[in-house]
């Protein structure tokens, strides 16, 4: 088959696939953000509200943040970073199952639906992080990072990790129904244990020995190292979340290829 595939066929094939992914993204926007466009607004203000509530609670408790002077900044680096991973993983997970009917059109493939949803989720994440930064700058919350490049690397790690897990989840949810429940529990545990609220190196060694293998913790640690000047997280292995994300993606793509007929909605 590959021998017969000419360059122009490949090019028209990609244009064809791009058109379908574009169509799916427009369809995703309709249902992701709802009919009345309030969904767009909510996607932007949700992190602001979350960080506001979390910071408010901790200020009331009267504790000082584990790093720096402001809880807003601590949760910005923790929650927002975590949310990129969580949103890609969970939103990605339903991309095939939620599009069953549309996948019945012969030109539309499972992978198109997955790429479309991940693409939209990346765009949403970029928009909501940008909006959050703008709000903080306006409110004069000190959120200028010491090393923006390293912060970007941390966000990128979470994008790769979330996209990889999202692909795998999409295939698993389409294959085994209860996976979506398992996933939602995994995400709740992740929220508690990946270091949104604490610094992993401050944990007792017993807990750290286990939690150090959680790739999401490393993404958050990367962002915090870049954000706070002088902070070094001694457990951080910066390539780790990228490697895990890549491995999950490869696993998901392989499963999709092997079990395409079973995953097929058609």
């Amino acid at each position: 088959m590959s021998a017969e595939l000419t360059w122009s066929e490949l090019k028209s094939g990609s244009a064809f696939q791009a058109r379908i992914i574009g169509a799916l993204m427009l369809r995703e926007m309709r249902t992701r953000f709802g009919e009345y466009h309030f969904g767009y607004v909510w996607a932007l203000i949700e992190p602001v509200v979350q960080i506001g509530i979390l910071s408010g609670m901790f200020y009331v408790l009267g504790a000082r943040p584990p790093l720096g002077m402001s809880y807003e900044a601590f949760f910005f680096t923790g929650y927002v970073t975590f949310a990129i991973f969580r949103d890609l993983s969970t939103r990605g997970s339903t991309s095939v199952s939620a599009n069953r009917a549309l996948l019945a059109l012969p030109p539309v493939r499972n992978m198109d639906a997955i790429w479309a949803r991940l693409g939209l989720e990346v765009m949403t994440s970029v928009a909501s992080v940008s909006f959050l930064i703008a709000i903080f700058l306006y409110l004069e919350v000190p959120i200028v990072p010491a090393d923006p490049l390293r912060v970007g690397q941390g966000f990128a790690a979470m994008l790769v990790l979330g996209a990889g897990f999202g692909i795998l989840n999409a295939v698993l949810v389409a294959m085994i129904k209860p996976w979506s429940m398992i996933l939602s529990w995994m995400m709740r545990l992740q929220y508690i244990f990946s270091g949104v609220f604490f610094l992993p190196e401050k944990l007792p060694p017993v807990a750290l020995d286990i939690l150090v293998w959680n790739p999401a913790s490393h993404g958050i640690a990367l962002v915090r190292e870049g954000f706070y000047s002088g902070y070094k997280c001694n457990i951080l292995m910066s390539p780790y979340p990228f490697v895990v994300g890549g491995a999950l993606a490869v696993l998901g793509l392989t499963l999709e290829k092997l079990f395409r007929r079973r995953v097929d909605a058609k």
Partner: protein
Amino acid sequence: MIRFENVTKRYPTKTGMKSILENASFEIARGRSLGVLGVNGAGKSTFLRLISGSELPNRGRVRRDGVTVSWPLGFMETFHGSLSGRDNVKFACRVYGRRIDEVTDYVRDFAEIGAHFDEPVKTYSSGMRARLAFGLSMAFNFDVYLVDEITAVGDARFKAKCADVFSEKLERSDIVMVSHSMGTLRTYCSVGCVLREGGVEFFDTIDEAIDLYERLTKSVGTVS
């Protein structure tokens, strides 16, 4: 020309793997309409989905070399319930690269579902869905239309309109049809094939295919 090359297709059932095609190679020629026959469970609907490309063979491949093929019209639901009829039509236009305004106008006028066109499809009656689906498939000019047990919808006038548009299409397009009604097959198809025991047998006339099918159903003892 639609060409099956060494195609094997099996699907799991409660009693084990069921084989529809075993290493089958054949061509479906253009210019003649094909009626597909086979006893219940022979895989007629799967056969149509293989032709359309919405289902993949376990082995081998199906080539459509430049021939545009519809999705199987009839049973299959291709609409997203939360989207309006209009948005579903727009989606199909984008997928098939057709002009949105032209197709949307055509389908809206054809389906005659009024303001429902802008309501979510999940609020439709099955008749409304069928009207929309039929209108959409008629808006695109496919070379080959796949029809899986199409049932007429609407009142006599609407049925007549559907039949008119459909015959008009068939002047330029072919049809591959699955139906339990021998009358319908004789009306629309000139050639026939019978699916059985992992293979397909082709006949130059639909009547020969129907003869074999009727002998098969008698010997198997099912009336279908």
